[in-house]
């Protein structure tokens, strides 16, 4: 295993096009830096993110996964963000069964103009995954 400092985790961020994806754009427009190893996948709604997508991400070698959706009660599709939250919860169980720390996946909500929040979340998860080390299934 590489030294902790040298480990640059692969993190996938599923971002709702209605909010989080735009928040990532806002972060860029405001030149708020965040780790470049966060890779954004744009989805129409956090509710489009399937348990399977996240499991596959780990199969493909992700060290951590973020699901980023709209604030509660602000989902354009009413329940999409709530569903995503429930799925992340279910996923934690599925991952734990496999032996992957549930801490590696988390759901956050944010608004399109929250560039700082996006960057803060990205930094936070990056630090956390660095702490946890590479995914045990890599």
């Amino acid at each position: 295993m590489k030294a902790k400092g040298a480990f640059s985790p692969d993190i996938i961020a599923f971002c709702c096009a209605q909010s989080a994806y735009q928040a990532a754009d806002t972060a860029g427009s405001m030149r708020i830096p965040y780790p470049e190893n966060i890779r954004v996948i744009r989805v129409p709604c956090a509710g489009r993110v399937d348990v399977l997508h996240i499991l596959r991400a780990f199969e493909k070698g992700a060290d951590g996964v973020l699901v980023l959706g709209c604030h509660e009660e602000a989902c354009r599709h009413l329940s999409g963000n709530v569903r995503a939250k429930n799925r992340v919860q279910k996923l934690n169980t599925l991952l734990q069964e496999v032996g992957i720390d549930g801490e590696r996946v988390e759901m956050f909500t944010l608004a399109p103009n929250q560039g700082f929040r996006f960057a803060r979340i990205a930094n936070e998860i990056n630090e956390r995954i660095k702490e946890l080390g590479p995914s045990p299934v890599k």
Partner: protein
Amino acid sequence: MIVAERKPLEDIKEMIAGYKKILILGCGTCVTICWAGGEKEVAVLSSQLRLASKKNGNELEILEDTIERQCEKELVEALKDKVQQVEVVLSMGCGAGVQTIAEIFPDTPVYPALNTKFVGMPEGEGIWVETCRTCGDCFLDKTGGICPIVRCAKGLLNGPCGGTNSGKCEVDPEKDCAWTLIYRRLEQQGRLDTMRKYYPPRNFQAVIRPGKVETLQA
């Protein structure tokens, strides 16, 4: 429909330990509808097992398939080529499915990935409740369409026990007392006389286990 639930991964891992090539077989009927063993759940289990084997450094190759009904011999027979490629079949069907596969492919071990729970119906999104005990001697005509054999914790036929607690069951305060429901329903229908009748002990030979129903050929 038949309601099932997936076994914990730990149990499944134990069953298939040591095998290098398996077929995970879903069933497209009841267990798909109750989110336990349809194509989606096959994919989830498959992904979990791949991750687990990767983590433990085991070699594991997984084939996935979902057929219309695992309890039909002809439909299972059609899987011959696929089954020949693997060491074991992990069935995501109900107990009937597992046994049909085992019968058609006696040389191949078949393992159940699900626990078959009961015959029931959906109550809310992702929630299923038992509504039929398959007793073989339907009693619903006497109880306003509410089955006391399933819904009364003690399966009583002649009225409530003393454990009715404000219309709830003493065993589980979340559950309604079936006999309170039956009383209200029969009262609503003006059929309380049905409840006043004495019903003799149940005939447990209504289904001689294992059950069999024979109907004249059409």
